[in-house]
Every structure is written in structure tokens, then in C-alpha cells.
């Protein structure tokens, strides 16, 4: 929804009106509100361009295949204007760093894939819907799941940009801390360039947070609290990717002694980042907007979240049933595990609705003989398995 807002302001306006009504937090707080209040809000939203852009849709870079940037002649705008889902600031960054966009897309893709892996046994399984909002309307609720999604995709961008750096694909990589391209060779000669992981972190901060930073909501409003929540979670994701990077060192002094030692950061396996963030998801902090326009804990007994922690402002919706308003897809048709007592067990997964059982043939490649590249000789094994599907 609302992806084409810059070209079609009318649809954007309609979309926002609808969204304001859908917005649970608003609805909750103004339960008996008169209708004209809503209308006023919609009007306000229409007049401000910034608001209309869907907050999540840079993720859509993961879905749209981005052509290789070298296809575009220098200074060519089409790439950036063709990409849907970028905010004003992000579009500007896109123009400045065209070669980065494909990797941001990669990063978003990695994030989504990891999210789906981590939540494969949950009622909400991070499934994507086929439009530029990527995850559908569930992301408009400031829930734990939303928090996780923001964090993991930000982490994905850090990962992807750092990787692209190492591939030598980015022209500004490493040395960019001096935003003066003319001095760049001098910096490089004098003190080398910063670490790629550091660069990845910084660029991800610029790009991912650009959308939140350019919004200008009144302090203390629900939109403002959502902005703060997004910023917190983006940062948590980036920090996870950055902090989990481990330090590798090499001694190369006299006769290989450790008098001279060089260390560098090495990105962790992204699965580890996913696991780490999943733990953070389980211990995420419930927040609400305070009087000073800052997020504060709902339950003051807990510790305040650190920048590494996830935070959410809304309770999670019920993911059991399909719900057009919340965007929940429901668990109907999901596979479940009959014997498990956990979330992937049929009891919990199907929300007590019961399940269907049927037998299928599962084809697997087995007894493979593999060489490091390019040859795999496998046999095909077929097994008969029982499968359970939620009603």
C-alpha cells in the first residue's frame, strides 16, 4: 500500500486515512472519539508529504530485483526514482551512493530470510506479502514482532554493506569517514581506512534511520513514540551485527613475535546474529511514551533497555486467525509438529482448532558425493512421512 505515493498523492491520502483508522494505538486511546477527530487527523496526514510513505517499505528492495548499478550512466536518476519505498532522505542517499543500493537489497533479503528461519515455528512466521509493504499490515502495530523485524533487517544491511566493502564493490568504502573525496588518498596513505564492519554500521545507520529522522511528529504523539521505537530497534539490530563481529588478530613482529599485532573485526555468521536478536526478542521491553516525549518502561521495576535491547509499544495481535485489519495471516494451513509441546506443536500452533493429518512422500537428496565446487552426485531418497496441518 501507498508505495507510489509520490506519483499518486491521491491514493496515498486514501491509504493514510485508512491506516489511521487501523492504527490500534490510536483506536485504543480514543475509543469513544468523535468521527471528526479522525477526519482531522486524515487531513493533517494528507497535507504532510512525509507521513504518507510507508515506514517499512525500504524492505521492498529485497523483493524488487535491482539492476546492477553499472548499467546506469553516471548521475543517472532512474534507479533511485524507480525504486519504490524509499523516503526522501533515503532517495537522496540512493543518489549519492547508487552502488550501495543493490547491497541494501541483499541485506534486507538476508534479514527477512533469517527472520523466517527464527520464526519458522511461531504463529507469526515472518511471512511476506507480495507488495512493497513486504510484511503486510502487521508492521503497523508496534509489537515485539515488528521490533524484531526492524532489528534483523538493520543487521542485515550492516552485514551486506560490510561484505560488499570487502568485495571491493563500493567506491567509498572504508575511507568515507572523511567526506572529502579529494583528501581520500592522503588519508589512506597516512592511516589507512577504517574497518569495513565499522563502515557498514555507519552506512546502515545513515540509511535505515533516515526515514525515521526526517519525520517531524509532535513530541509525545503516538507516531512519535513509534518513531522512537523504530530507532531503538534499528540500533539494536546494527549493534548486534557490529558487536557480534569477533576480533581476529595476527602477530607479525620480529620472527613472528607478538610485538607487532594487527587486529580486525570479522563479521559473525548471520545465523548467530539472528539467534542473538531472538533472545533479545524474548526479553524485549514494553515501553510507552512518557511525559517528556521519551520512551519509558511500562513496568518501572525492570531495567531500562540499553541500546542493544529491543523495545515495543503495542501488544502483539492475535496471530491465530486471519485478520484483515491487523494484517495477520492466521495459522490455517500451517504445518505443525504433533509431538512437540512447544510453539511448533499442533496444540499451540493451531490455537486449539485441531489439525488434519495426511501422508506425503518426501523426496530428499541423499548419499551425496560433493566436491568443493560444482559437482554433486546424489541419490534420491524417498520417505513416507506424516504431516499435520492446522485447520
Amino acid at each position, binding site marked *: 500500500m501507498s508505495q507510489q505515493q509520490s506519483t499518486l498523492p491521491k491514493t496515498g491520502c486514501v491509504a493514510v486515512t485508512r491506516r489511521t483508522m487501523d492504527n490500534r494505538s490510536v483506536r485504543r486511546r480514543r475509543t469513544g472519539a468523535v468521527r471528526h477527530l479522525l477526519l482531522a487527523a486524515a487531513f493533517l496526514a494528507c497535507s504532510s508529504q512525509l507521513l504518507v510513505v510507508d515506514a517499512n517499505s525500504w524492505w521492498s528492495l529485497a523483493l524488487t530485483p535491482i539492476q546492477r548499478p553499472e548499467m546506469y550512466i553516471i548521475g543517472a536518476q532512474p534507479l533511485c526514482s524507480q525504486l519504490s519505498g524509499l523516503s526522501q532522505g533515503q532517495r537522496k542517499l540512493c543518489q549519492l551512493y547508487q552502488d550501495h543500493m543493490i547491497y541494501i537489497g541483499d541485506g534486507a533479503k538476508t534479514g527477512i530470510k533469517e527472520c523466517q528461519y527464527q520464526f519458522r515455528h511461531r504463529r507469526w512466521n515472518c511471512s511476506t506479502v507480495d507488495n512493497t509493504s513486504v510484511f503486510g499490515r502487521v508492521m503497523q502495530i508496534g509489537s515485539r514482532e515488528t521490533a524484531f523485524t526492524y532489528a534483523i533487517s538493520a543487521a542485515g544491511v550492516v552485514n551486506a554493506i560490510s*561484505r560488499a*566493502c*570487502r*568485495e*571491493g*564493490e*563500493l*567506491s567509498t*568504502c*572504508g*575511507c568515507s569517514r572523511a567526506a572529502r573525496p579529494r583528501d*581520500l*588518498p592522503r588519508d*589512506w*596513505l*597516512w*592511516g*589507512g*581506512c577504517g*574497518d*569495513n564492519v565499522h563502515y557498514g554500521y555507519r552506512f546502515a545507520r545513515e540509511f535505515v534511520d533516515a526515514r525515521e529522522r526526517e519525520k517531524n511528529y509532535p513530541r509525545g504523539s503516538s507516531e512519535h513514540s513509534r518513531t522512537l521505537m523504530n530507532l531503538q530497534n534499528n540500533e539494536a539490530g546494527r549493534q548486534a551485527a557490529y558487536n557480534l563481529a569477533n*576480533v*581476529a*588478530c*595476527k602477530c*607479525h613482529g*620480529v*620472527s*613472528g613475535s*607478538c*610485538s*607487532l*599485532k*594487527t*587486529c*580486525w573485526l570479522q563479521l559473525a*555468521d548471520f*545465523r548467530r546474529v539472528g539467534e542473538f536478536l531472538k533472545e533479545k526478542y524474548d526479553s524485549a521491553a514494553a515501553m510507552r511514551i512518557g511525559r517528556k516525549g521519551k520512551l519509558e518502561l511500562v513496568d518501572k521495576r525492570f531495567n531500562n533497555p540499553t541500546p542493544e535491547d529491543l523495545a515495543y509499544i503495542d501488544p502483539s495481535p492475535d496471530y491465530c486467525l486471519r485478520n484483515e485489519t491487523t494484517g495477520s495471516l492466521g495459522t490455517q494451513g500451517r504445518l505443525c509438529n504433533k509431538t512437540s509441546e512447544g510453539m511448533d506443536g499442533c496444540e499451540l500452533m493451531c490455537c486449539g482448532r485441531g489439525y488434519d493429518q495426511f501422508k506425503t512422500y518426501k523426496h530428499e537428496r*541423499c*548419499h*551425496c*558425493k*560433493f*566436491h*568443493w*565446487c*560444482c*559437482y*554433486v552426485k*546424489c541419490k534420491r531418497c524417498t520417505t513416507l512421512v506424516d504431516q499435520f496441518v492446522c485447520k
Partner: protein
Amino acid sequence: MAGAIIENMSTKKLVIMGVTLLLFQAFAFMVGGLIAPSPTTAVHYLAAKCVDTSKHRQETKWFMPWGQDQCEKIRSFEEAMAKKIEANNIVFAVHIPLHYNEMSPWFQFMLVILQFDIAFKMYNQIEDGALVTVDVGLAYRDDPTSEWTEMAHSFEQRKLNCNFTTAKTFENEGRYYECDLLPFMEVGSVSHKYYLLNIRLPVNERKKINVGIGEIKDIRLVSIHQNGGFTKVWFAMKTFLTPSILIIMIWYWRRITLLSRPPVLLEKVILALGISMTFINIPVEWFSIGFNWTWMLLFGDIRQGIFYSMLLSFWIIFCGEHLMDQTERNRFSVYWRQVGPIVFGSFCLFIFDMCERGVQLTNPFYSVWASDVGTELAMAFIIVAGICACLYFLFLCFMVFQVFRNISGKRTSLPAMSKARRLHYEGLIFRFKFLMLVTLFCAAMTVIFFIVSQVHDGHWHWGDHEVQVNSAFFTGVYGMWNLYVFAIMFLYAPSHKRYGDEQSSGQCITGDHGANSGEDIQLTTTITHVDAPTEIYKMMGKTAQE
């Protein structure tokens, strides 16, 4: 007079000198911490997977990962599998440095580390003791448009040492193994602007080459080079220190030669220490900017080795000459037992260094650690060197202990001695204790800074300034040992103050001996009582060796 300058110096002057040296010391630290950048930089590279489409393999073909004439690339091996590209046709290409940068002779050296990203697959696990064979070529060019020139080409084997931290189940397929860093390449001079590495992993099932090495997803390289800024600061420091040490050395030796007796062992050792310090100081590295001298790294190691062994020998001999047990030493051969381990240990390290860096002069990809025999040999050399170091320190500690025992022995009998003897011993004790203190201070500082720089990799913030701890460590410690050698040569040079305030001791002897006192004075006051000690001992009512 009483020998060395240090004994004749007034406390005030000594303090002034100490403060000056400390100021220089602080300056040396600051130069490194505030002006110089960190000593080295590590740059990551991820090898691009190029496809060699040519039917017949040409040796001259080089594959560029990016830029104008970049190769045909694949993004993953799934793609290769789909396109039916054989392993032997995949070339991993890495261009050093990254985009828009160029290497420079100021980087001094470049070493490259190899890392494999190997994904875990249930049916394709890494076998125990798996060996990777790489076919690697290194080329350079100085102009971004010219042709590549081959620098080295080699077949290398590296041992994969990987472990998988989580359970080996289907669930965890696709996770990466954690593999040890593999030493890959070392070049002793960076005289070209662009370098290109082309790596192939040829597969030969019959010969069991590159079989059972798991599913390699990517090849990563980390190149380490010295920073240009650090090199400049380092050169500047060396250029400044060389004349300082050289001048004090000449001055010191002139003083020695002015004496009417031949120089004693300790004086010679101090001179040797000065020479080795100058040897390390002379900034021959300046030539590496203009010339392609790959042996500079090895040469630097040798110079450092010589200085270290000289310093260690100096401590032993200094202790020995202050033992105060009236044994005739003053000959180098007396110390063979203590100096032996130093020489032997340094020799072992030298052999080890020659095996590694020496061979790297011809084949930059060589590593002793790559083969089992090499690893054992290298370990043997290092262990022997380690044993030598332990032996040396045992000897040194024992000698220091002996000196202190003798000192406390002498202390009790000091008041009963004749004035000349008392002053002689007091001089010895003072000189020894002073050096002991300074040496301990320097050693402690070195150790502390070493630990700090090892624990703190990186920099500290001090106000707005970024303090480079590692650079401060290098310049500071280097400056410190220079100042140490400087101070020793200055303070332990023979004093000219014969007729000054320290006349007393001389007069005491002259009183006894009359006319030929001049020489005797010096005999008493030389750091060791050498040429005719018997005479003095007779005078003192003691027969030394009879």
C-alpha cells in the same frame, strides 16, 4: 677522581639530567600517540569468483575482480553448478588495494592472511587433517591501464584447521565452520601501486587434491601493511636519533682512548651496545622508498636481534664486573656460560627467521607453518630459543642475587675499610644500583606498555585527541631504549674531574704512592680493577689472587 661521570656528578645535575631524559621520553610517547596513526592497517578482501572461459589455459591471463576489464563473475557456486562450470575454471581474484586507492612504498611491507568460508553440509564435511592446495599467482602494475606483470606463482598447501561449534545436524546445514587463519603471503616491500592475486583450487580426485575440504563458499583475505603516517614518524625518529647516539658514542670512545690504559671489557661492551643501537637506528629504510628491496624486513629483524642480544650480554657482563669478589674477569671468555645461551638462542631465532622470511624473498607464499615438518622444525627452534632465554634469566637473576649478597657483605665491613677502598666499593655499589634501578624501570615500562598495547587494541580518547596506544608503545619504547643507551654511555664514561671535588679518593692513594699516582688513580676508578689490581690490593693490605 672516581671513575665514571655518574659518581662525580652532583645530585642536582643528576636530577636535571634525569628530568631531561624523562621529558624526551614523554615526547617520544607523545609523538607516537598523538601524531602517528596506528602502526598497521588490516584491509579485508573477499575474492571475486571469476570464470576462466578460455579452452586452453594461458599462463598470462589475469582476472580482475572489478573495474574496466573485469572478469566474468559468478555470485555463488549454485550458479556455477547450474552453468556446469568446473572447479578448475573458477579463479578467485583479489585486487589489492580496494577501489580508488593505491599502495605505496611507505607501507613498507604487506602480509596477507587467507581464510576460507566453509559451509557445513552433512554429506560434505571437512575430513580430518584436510589439506587445501592452492594455485596462486601474484601480479603487479603501476598504471591502472597497463598490463599485469607476474611477480610470483606457486602451488601451496595449507592445512585446514576448522571446527564446527554447534551440533552437526541437518538443521545446522549452511552454517560456517570456524577456521584458523592461514598465513598466505608476505612481501618485504611495497614498491608497486596495484597488486592482483589469482587463486585457483584445482581438483584432482585421483591424486586426492582438494577432496574432502568441505563446501567452500568464499575465500577471504586480510592484507596487513604498515601505515604510511607511522612509517614517516618512525623514519623521522630514527633520523633524529641516529646522530644523537652516534655523537655520544664518539664522545664516549674518545674519553676512553684518552685514558692511558687500554679499555676494559665493560667499556668495550658499552661501546658495542652503542654500535648496535646505532646500527638499528640508521634509517636505511629511506632507501626502501626508492628501491625495491624486499630483504628490508629480514634485515630489520637481524638488526633488532643483534641489539637484543647485545643488551642481554651487556647486563650479564655488567653484573659480572660488579660482583666484587676479586676474581679476575675482564675477559669475554669468562662469560661464555652466560653469553652462550644468548648467542645460541639468537642463532636459533635467526635460523627460524631465515627459514620463514629468507625463503619468502624468493617465494612470497612460503610459510614454515604450512608443512608438518616445517611446523615441527620451527617449533623446535622457538622452544630451544625459549629454553635459552630461561637459562639466561636464571643466570642473570643468580648474578644479581650474588651482587646483592656481596653488597650486603661489603656494607657491614665498609666502615672498617680504608678510605680508598671504601670509596671504591661505594662507587661500585652506587653504579650498580643506579643501573639496576634504571634497567628495572625501563624493563617494567616496556612490559607494562606491551601489555597495555596488547590488551587495548586501538586507541584511547583523550579530550578531542585520539591517542594511538600501539604507536605510542612503539615510539615510546624505542625512544626509551635509545635514551637508556644514551644515558649509559654518558654516565658511565670515565670522568675528567681529577682535580675537582672528588680529589679525596685520588689523594688518598696518591698519598701512599707518591709520584706514579696518576695511573693508580685510574686503576682504582676504572669500573673494574684491571691492569694492576694486585698493586692496589697490596696497598690495601689485601692480596687478591695469591
